[in-house]
């Protein structure tokens, strides 16, 4: 099956102070996504998840640039596309949901106007067809009485409802891929579950592919088939959600899973020691080694490559390399 989205060795760097300071926000990231597939992009703040997404849609801030690698969407390379061409893809083929529902909607325009825009501009739908489409979209995100509510303004809606409107906007252009950047982080916990239900329904009904960015593993378990764990700008482990949850290979993945509070358990919460690295001054070798419980000498001196664990399951850790393990064991013996 041809992949809908193929990201290969993507490198996106931020430069500041006239090039004197370079931050490798995304450093050699690769993953693929097929049609209708869902992948969770997980990691702590600042690990490069959002930059990866912005690289895909081509809306990086002026200080950032894709300096290497490729992003192929529907068979076409999109990193080299001109802004005008990207604009046609954005909204129509690839849509994005942002984190803050209070700020995402323009306060001066009605819900109708804002949901209708992608359909209006990309598919040239007008008049009654447009109205019906907006109502259908609002219904699909479970907003009651869509005909009435579409005449309202953002400030008249709650956060949860606004975020659903943002979801409707994302679907409005009929995209093949939706990128959701922490869409539930700013919602009340009780509303979060509802919203995820809605999102999952849309995804399954329409068969749209989904990249779900979050730091919450529970959500990934619920929403996604595949999962990629990011740390310091790199994907340190990726595979199916089931595999990674059951027996994670990378110590960071293991630590993340371990730090999830378990219902009914009275064990003390485990927090990963240390703090996320400064992307401008990364540690040598494996970026995780200062916080890792299983550091071997090789981890300090050499950056690990993608170690093969199983089909479609890789982990960037020397622990997957049998030879490295044997050397270590013999060294401490």
């Amino acid at each position: 099956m041809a992949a809908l989205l193929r990201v290969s060795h993507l490198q996106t760097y931020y430069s500041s102070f006239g090039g004197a300071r370079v931050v490798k926000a995304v450093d050699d990231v690769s993953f693929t996504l097929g049609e209708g597939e869902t992948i969770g992009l997980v990691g702590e703040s600042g690990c490069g998840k959002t930059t990866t997404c912005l690289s895909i849609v081509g809306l990086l801030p002026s200080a950032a640039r894709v300096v290497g690698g490729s992003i192929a969407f529907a068979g076409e390379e999109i990193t080299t596309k001109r802004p005008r061409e990207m604009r046609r893809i954005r909204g129509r083929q690839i849509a994005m949901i942002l984190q803050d529902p209070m700020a995402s909607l323009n306060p001066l325009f009605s819900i109708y106007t804002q949901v209708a825009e992608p359909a209006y501009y990309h598919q040239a739908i007008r008049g009654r067809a447009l109205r019906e489409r907006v109502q259908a979209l609002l219904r699909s995100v479970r907003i009651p009485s869509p005909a009435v509510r579409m005449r309202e303004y953002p400030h008249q809606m709650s956060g949860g409802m606004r975020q659903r409107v943002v979801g409707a906007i994302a679907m409005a252009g009929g995209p093949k891929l939706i990128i959701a950047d922490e869409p539930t982080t700013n919602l009340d916990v009780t509303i979060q579950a509802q919203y995820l239900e809605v999102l999952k329904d849309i995804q399954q009904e329409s068969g749209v592919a989904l990249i779900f960015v979050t730091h919450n593993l529970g959500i990934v378990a619920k929403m996604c088939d595949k999962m990629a764990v990011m740390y310091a700008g790199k994907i340190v482990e990726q595979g199916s959600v089931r595999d990674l949850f059951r027996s994670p290979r990378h110590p960071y993945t293991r630590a993340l899973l371990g730090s999830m509070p378990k219902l009914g358990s009275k064990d003390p919460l485990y927090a990963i020691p240390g703090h996320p690295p400064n992307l401008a001054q990364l540690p040598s070798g494996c970026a995780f080694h200062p916080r890792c419980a299983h550091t071997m000498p090789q981890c300090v001196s050499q950056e690990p490559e993608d170690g093969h664990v199983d089909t479609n399951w890789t982990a960037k850790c020397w622990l997957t390399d049998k030879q490295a393990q044997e050397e270590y064991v013999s060294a401490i013996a």
Partner: protein
Amino acid sequence: MVSTIEETRASPVPIGARDFASVPRRWTSLARQLPILPLAILVPFILLALFANWIAPYDPTEPIPGAKIFEPPFWMQGGSSRALLGTDFQARDLFSRLLFGARVSLIVGVMGTIVAGSIGTALGILSGYLGGWVDQVIMRVTDAWLALPALVFAIFLATMIGPSMWNIVVILGLVYWTRYARVIRGEVLSLREREFVKLAEIAGGSRARVIFRHILPNVLNSTMVLASLTIGVVIIAEASLSFLGVGVPPPEPAWGSMLADGRSMLMVGDWWLTVFPGLGILLVVLATQLLGDWLRVRLDPQLRNM
């Protein structure tokens, strides 16, 4: 077992563009931090104004003996080196008058701003910190006085109180304090919620103590930025009042009244009486604006956007 080995990989950072190894570090970092342009303008003006008594060739209020009225500057026909920049309608030396006028503009500008800033900051703090009816009263007065155009209000007060340099200082202070009050009040409102203030209150400090030790130092930044930006406005206001005849009274030289004097001869093309005083105002105000911008960037990162 957590690894204690942590080697930082040197990131490939190119060395910064300039290498000032030859010049002592302290001076260059200081020099790079000072706002050169505004100071280059202001310092000479200030010095000229301070030492006007010694630098000025003539008494600014007395006509030059033997000179004609409306003499042009020395480089034009009819001018002489006796009066470098020309003379006015009473044959007084323009250059000397400009120097003393600088003194007036600077003094009124600075003092007026100090008065306005002090009143405005004090009332802003009281209004923001004490709240309640104090806040209401002060804010209503602020709104009311802000509604009246500053110049009109100043003209009215000057007409009533009578012109003199120090009266003008007070008047301008009374007219412009409202601008400070608004801004400072806003700052105090947000400061009031900050933890260190709450801690001080819980610790039992009297209100006066909290205000002086915690609130005041933190709003001073904004006051100074605001002051440096409005000093130009005050200088122009003084010039406007003097132009209209309700500012600094003659024969004391003030750039504004010099402009008014020069108006009559403008029609026949005697430009020097108009251009030079106006240039003076322009340069001083420009310098204060630049200084204000520099201060704003350094003192308040939130306003950097502007």
